[in-house]
């Protein structure tokens, strides 16, 4: 029973703040990609997207209030994805 008790109720206000941050980042990413940054455009857009997804995972998807093993599993899946990307590009970047 005490398990249920510590189920965290997230206040509405926090969700509004997260939404405002997400909207600001969205417009930020539109702004920064409209500037001519050359090859950094992709990196900048992806950086904004990564920060936004971290906010969604942490607050909207409640990872902040979840037990550590769930956080670990999520981190593991993203780590697998990054590893596959890196291996794929190690191949493509060094092909002759």
């Amino acid at each position, binding site marked *: 029973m005490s*398990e249920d008790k510590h189920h965290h*109720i997230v206040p509405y206000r926090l969700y509004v703040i997260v939404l405002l941050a997400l909207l600001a980042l969205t417009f930020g*990413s539109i702004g920064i990609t409209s500037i001519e940054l050359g090859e950094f455009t992709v990196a900048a857009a992806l950086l904004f997207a990564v920060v*936004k997804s971290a906010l969604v995972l942490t607050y909207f998807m*409640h990872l902040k209030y979840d037990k550590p093993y*769930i956080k670990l599993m*999520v981190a593991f899946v993203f780590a697998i994805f990054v590893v596959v*990307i890196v291996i794929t590009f190690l191949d493509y970047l060094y092909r002759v």
Partner: protein
Amino acid sequence: MAEHQHAHVEHPDMYDPESSKIGMWLFIFTELLLFGGLFIVYSVYRYLNPDAFHLAAEELNTFIGAFNTVILLVSSMTIAMSTTALQKGHKKVAIALVVITFIIGIGFLVNKYFEWGVKFSHGIWPGSEQMLNEMSQGEILFFGLYFVMTGLHALHIIVGLIIMGFAIKGVANGKVNAKRPSLLDNCGLYWHLVDLIWIFLFPLFYLIH
């Protein structure tokens, strides 16, 4: 006699929010890797055809993409709020918030319909003559990925709407309540996944050109 055969066996309460949550997350992992695979395909083709991707992306309407991003983010907030409302015991507020999320989801699909409609009217759809005759290999790849990835995402929106229907029904008849919120929680998790995927689709297709 018949009573005995039908005797209702009291099932132990099988409700287990922790397991439900793990199950939902495991499913979300498969979804992340499904779209992850498509993102890898996108990034490799983009690397191989930088100019064609640059050119093709100009065809997409940044405004409609940004508009859909904004409403999807708002809908993510409203469904997150509905779990708070349910936990506080505000049933009607919880239902209203899911209904708002549902309506925004429909709005997203309507925008998508018009967006794709414009592409179709320009003769751009997978395998169209215009695409095969006038586009370079890289542009064909770009639009192929565009239709597959945004289409698969739209399919997830539709599934999310169906799950919301069940969540609304559950909250309305009291089966989903402050003590048993799993269905609504998982519905929210799924909707946030849809949002999460769009957070990456939007810059990759609409912004980078």
